[in-house]
């Protein structure tokens, strides 16, 4: 069996499992875990937003929670204050996140490395405190609770997130669509240009790439991913709160993305899954579960700097090299 056949099999198994979750998981471990998996899918989009910037354009953002928060509030304010239905509210959340990413990005992507990381934290802190203090709009600490509008309402057919299976499949489809779009993006001309900017920005400008504009586009696309995640999470929890805009949330997404494997498509999913499952299992028994998070993060950065998926890819490449086909060598090496 060739390496690509093994990978195809794993993909098919994963897809089958994800589709069967609402039936398998309650029978095996309890229906609570269906919503944990839905939550993992949502948070993996936030981690993917970090990964798009860090893994593919070389910008480490510690402020992606800001755009997650804007997605959340866009949905909550849209539903509760503006009386919007599901889709317009979802759209408002995503647009708000992207608009915010555009405005902050215009300033942030002029900088790189630690300066960039700091300015993203500063922006997210500013808006976190603004959200906390402007209670009339955001509900401050208490946040905004809202009544869930139906997602589909055509004739007699009405579906909403109150149906757990529908909720799960809606989140699964949205996440799958986003990851499929990223998969296309990373192989596209625009994606290659992102990689060139990440690898060597001076050279990129000398071959004619508009480095500033490319970084800004990536920043807005990352805002889109974070906004989708935030919007979904608002519908999922029927709730929006300033606490999700805190940079602590951004930092967690950075850890998920790096541990899972930066510059890999699935790294953010793997990292998010790992940490949320650990959290769900350990936190019921031991309140200091974040110690485990820290330890695992340090170990991975020290011993597997390419993350879990990076390790896997290296392993696959080695197997492929041992076989006859040198195709494995075509895989992008991720060492600096």
């Amino acid at each position, binding site marked *: 069996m060739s390496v690509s056949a093994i990978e195809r099999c794993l993909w098919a198994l994963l897809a089958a499992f994800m589709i069967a979750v609402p039936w398998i998981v309650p029978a095996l471990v309890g229906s609570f875990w269906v919503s944990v998996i839905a939550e993992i899918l949502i948070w993996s989009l936030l981690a993917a937003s970090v990964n798009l910037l860090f893994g593919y354009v070389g910008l480490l953002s510690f402020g992606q929670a800001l755009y997650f928060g804007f997605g959340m509030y866009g949905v909550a304010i849209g539903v509760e204050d503006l009386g919007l239905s599901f889709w317009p509210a979802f759209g408002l959340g995503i647009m708000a996140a992207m608009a915010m990413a555009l405005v902050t990005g215009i300033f942030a992507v002029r900088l790189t490395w630690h300066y960039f990381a700091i300015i993203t934290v500063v922006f997210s802190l500013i808006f976190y405190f603004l959200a906390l203090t402007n209670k009339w709009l955001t509900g401050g600490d208490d946040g905004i609770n809202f009544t869930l509008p139906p997602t589909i309402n055509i004739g007699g057919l009405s579906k909403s997130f109150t149906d757990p299976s529908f909720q799960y499949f809606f989140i699964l489809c949205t996440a799958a669509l986003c990851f499929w779009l990223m998969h*296309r993006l990373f192989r596209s001309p625009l994606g*290659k240009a992102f990689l060139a900017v990440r690898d060597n920005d001076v050279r990129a400008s000398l071959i004619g790439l508009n480095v500033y504009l490319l970084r800004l586009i990536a920043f807005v696309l990352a805002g889109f991913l974070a906004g989708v995640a935030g919007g979904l999470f608002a519908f999922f929890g029927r709730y929006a709160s300033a606490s999700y805009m805190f940079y602590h949330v951004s930092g967690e997404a950075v850890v998920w993305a790096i541990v899972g494997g930066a510059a890999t498509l699935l790294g953010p999913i793997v990292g998010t899954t790992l940490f949320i499952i650990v959290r769900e299992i350990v936190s019921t028994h031991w309140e200091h579960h974040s110690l485990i998070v820290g330890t695992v993060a340090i170990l991975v950065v020290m011993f597997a700097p390419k993350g879990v998926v990076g390790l896997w890819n290296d392993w696959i490449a080695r197997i492929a090299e041992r076989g006859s086909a040198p195709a494995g060598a075509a895989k992008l090496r991720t060492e600096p």
Partner: protein
Amino acid sequence: MSEPILRTQGLTKRFGGVVAVDNLSFSLAGSRLHAIIGPNGAGKTTFFNLVSGLLAPSAGRVFFQGRDITALKPHQISRLGVKRTLQIKSIFPRLTVAENLWITGQAGRGFLHPLRTAASDQQAREAVERTLAQIGLSALASRAAGTLSYGDVALLEIGMAVISRPKLLLLDEPTCGMSPAETKRAVDKIRELSRTVDIVIIEHDMDVVFEIADDITVMAQGTILARGSPKEIAADERVREVYLGRDEDKDYVEEAAHA
């Protein structure tokens, strides 16, 4: 040809109190392989940085084919057809060799498609394959560029220059750090290129300069000291004094130690 391909007018760059390029007026008629030589610190690389837009001049103007490019950004200048290499080899280390060439060939396009696969553009792919064959790196096409040997990186840089379809090519010490065999390969390639593209080359290796250049400009302390054919330059007393009299090998070893 009436309008020179590259012309500078009173070009000056100051770094604090140091004048790196001093009121430089340079003009380059087309269809020649032009070399710039001069001792370290003469302002040669700074001159390239000013022309390619990496640095903004303190005073003066740069014209490319009669068009004022002084205020343009590097990518805008590059899109006009002024391409350059950097003194320290500069490629995209985590991209494959083929991807390095591919993105260099496509970078000038205004629109980069966000969803179509890069591999689906047959024209671009064929250009990459042609260039790979030209520089003799076809066998290494899928290797990460960062894992190549120094000489192969230099060849890749030349390939990147070729595939970008330059109108004017600025080469900053292209043979620096190469073995004699690699140097010969690179020089052949540069000479071949010069038949279709105007080239300005900064070079420390005098054998290379006198072998390939049609014209030589000697720079010292930010200004032009002399200009002429290789014969004229070799005979010029002042040039001998500031430059050719120095021990080139020592000069080179020092530089390598700092690189």
